C-alpha cells in the first residue's frame, strides 16, 4: 500500500532508520514517487549533514567551581533531604549574613604562602604562610616569590621584585593594586569579581588565567593564557582573549590587543601606533600583515583610528572573514555599539 498523505512528520525517522519496517517500506515507496517528499528528504538530509560543522565545545572550568561552591552550601542527597536541605539553607543563610557583615566591617584576610625567599607582608617577613588584609602590601625582592589565595575564587602568584597591595577582600569584590613587578592570576569565578588596578588602568577578570607586568615607569603588559580579561581605562577598553596580549602605558591606558603569534612587524607597528604617535604607515603594516585571527586587533583598531581610516579597517576585516548578518558597513563605521558587539561576538569564533 502506498501512503496517500505526505509523510513529512516521519521523514527524519525514515532517514534515521528508526521507523518500523512496514512503515519504512511504505514511506520509501511514497518518497520514490513524490517530488515534494523527495525534496523534503533532501533538505532534511542536508540539514542533518550540515550540523557536522558544529564542534563539541569544552565546558569552562568556572562552571564546576560554581557548582562546587553551591554544593558546599547544600547537604548530600539523603532520604531526609528536604529537612536536611532546609536546615542547611537556614544555616547557610545565618553564616552568610554573619560572613557578609564581618566581611563588610573587617574584610577577609587572605592566606599568603611563601614560594621562595623572604616575601614581606606589611612589615613582616612571612614564614611558610601568613595572612594579608585590605590595605596591606606584599613585597618580594629579587629572590622571593609568594602565592596569595584570593578568597574562594582563585590565587595570585607574586613574582620577584614586585609590590602589590590588597585593596578589597569582599565576596563581591576582590581587588589588588599592582605598583610594579609581575603577578600571575588564576581565577575560576563568574566574571567581574576580581580586579587588578595599575597606573595604566584596571584588569577586570572575566574568568581566566593571566599574567600582568608593570615596570617602574608604569609601563605594562597583560598576557592572557585562559579565558578573557577586560582592561579598562577612562572609557577605553581592550578585550583580551587567551593567547593574546596587550601593552599598557600610564596616561594612555591599554593599547591594541594582539595575538602572541602575530607577526613581529604587526606588534611593533601597534606599539608605535598606540603609544608613539604612529600614523598611516604603521596602520598600513597592520592591515597588510593581518591574518584572520588578527581581526582581534583590527576590531579594536576600528574604534581607535581616525574616522577617515575606518573604512580601510572595515574593508580589511571583511576581506579576511565573512561579515555576519546584522552588521552593515555604515553602522560599523558609525561605531554603533550593538553592531560592533554583534561583529565581535561572531569574530570571536575564530579567535
Amino acid at each position, binding site marked *: 500500500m502506498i501512503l496517500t498523505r505526505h509523510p513529512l512528520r*516521519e521523514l527524519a525517522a525514515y532517514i534515521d532508520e528508526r521507523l518500523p519496517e512496514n512503515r519504512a517500506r511504505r514511506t520509501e515507496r511514497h518518497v520514490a514517487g513524490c517530488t515534494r517528499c523527495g525534496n523534503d528528504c533532501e533538505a532534511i538530509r542536508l*540539514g542533518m549533514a550540515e550540523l557536522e560543522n558544529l564542534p563539541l565545545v569544552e565546558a569552562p572550568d568556572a562552571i564546576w567551581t560554581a*557548582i562546587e561552591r553551591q554544593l558546599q552550601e547544600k547537604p548530600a542527597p539523603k532520604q531526609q533531604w528536604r529537612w536536611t536541605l532546609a536546615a542547611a539553607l537556614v544555616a547557610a543563610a545565618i553564616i552568610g549574613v554573619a560572613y557578609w557583615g564581618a566581611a563588610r566591617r573587617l574584610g577577609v584576610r587572605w592566606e599568603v604562602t611563601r614560594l621562595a625567599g623572604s616575601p614581606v607582608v606589611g612589615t613582616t617577613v612571612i614564614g611558610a604562610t601568613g595572612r594579608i588584609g585590605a590595605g596591606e602590601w606584599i613585597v618580594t625582592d629579587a629572590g622571593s616569590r609568594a602565592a596569595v589565595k584570593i578568597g574562594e575564587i582563585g590565587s595570585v602568584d607574586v613574582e620577584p621584585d614586585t609590590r602589590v597591595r590588597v585593596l578589597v577582600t569582599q565576596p563581591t569584590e576582590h581587588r589588588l593594586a599592582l605598583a610594579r613587578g609581575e603577578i600571575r592570576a588564576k581565577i575560576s569565578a563568574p566574571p567581574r569579581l576580581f580586579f587588578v588596578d595599575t597606573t595604566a588602568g584596571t584588569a577586570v577578570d572575566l574568568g581566566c588565567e593571566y599574567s600582568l607586568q608593570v615596570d617602574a615607569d608604569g609601563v605594562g603588559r597583560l598576557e592572557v593564557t585562559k579565558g578573557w580579561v577586560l582592561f579598562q581605562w577612562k572609557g577605553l577598553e581592550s578585550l583580551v582573549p587567551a593567547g593574546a596580549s596587550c601593552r599598557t602605558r600610564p596616561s594612555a591606558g591599554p593599547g591594541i590587543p594582539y595575538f602572541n603569534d602575530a607577526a613581529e612587524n604587526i606588534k611593533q607597528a601597534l606599539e608605535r601606533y598606540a603609544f608613539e604617535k604612529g600614523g598611516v604607515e604603521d596602520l598600513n603594516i597592520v592591515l597588510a600583515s593581518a591574518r584572520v585571527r588578527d581581526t582581534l586587533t583590527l576590531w579594536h583598531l576600528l574604534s581607535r583610528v581616525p574616522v577617515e581610516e575606518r573604512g580601510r579597517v572595515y574593508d580589511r576585516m571583511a576581506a579576511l572573514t*565573512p561579515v555576519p548578518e546584522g552588521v552593515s558597513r555604515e553602522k560599523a563605521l558609525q561605531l554603533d555599539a550593538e553592531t560592533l558587539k554583534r561583529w565581535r561576538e561572531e569574530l*570571536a569564533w575564530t579567535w
Partner: protein
Amino acid sequence: MVPLSDREISADIIQDCRSGDRDAFRALYDIYKDRVYSMALYFSRGDAAAASDITQQVFLKLMTGIGQFRGDAEFSTWLYRLVANACMDAARRQKAAPKYSQDMEMVAGEGSQEEDYARRQIASSVRAAVSALPPKFRVAVLLRYFDDLSYEQMAKALQCSMGTVASRLSRGHRMLGERLKGLARRP
C-alpha cells in the same frame, strides 16, 4: 553526530552519587559536561554566560535530585530532560534577537586561506540557521546531534510522544536544510 564512547553510566556511579559521593558526581559531570554545555551554547545562540548558567543549573538539579532517581528510567533520559527544560525556560525568559557570543574557538584549518574562509562561512551559516529555529525544534535537533539517543529516549527527555519527536526533527532539519541550500552548492 559527535562520536561518544563513554555514554554508558554504571549503576555504581549513580549509586555513589545517591549516597552523596562528590567524587562520583564529579566523574558524572566530566562525562556529560561538554555535551550539556555545547547543547546549551548552541541553543543560547552562542551566549557563553547563558550556556554556563544552564549547565550549572542542570548539574545542581541533578545532584540535589539524584536521591529520587530510582533507576527505572535511563540516566541520560533524565539528564537530557533537565537540559531541555532548562533550555526552554531560558528561551522563555530571553526572547532576544539571534546573537552569538564569545568564548568560542574554532580549530584552525589545515587548508588554504580560501578554504579557511569558506569553512568559517559555513560554520557561521550553520550556527545562524540553528539559532533561527523555533526553540522546540532547536532543542530536538541539538539533542539528536549531541547524543545517540533513540526516538523513545528523546521523547522521554522532551516529554512528548515519539511522533512529536519525529515531527520536530523532520521540520527542524528541513528548515535547516532549506536555509543552508546555498552552502550545499559550494564547489
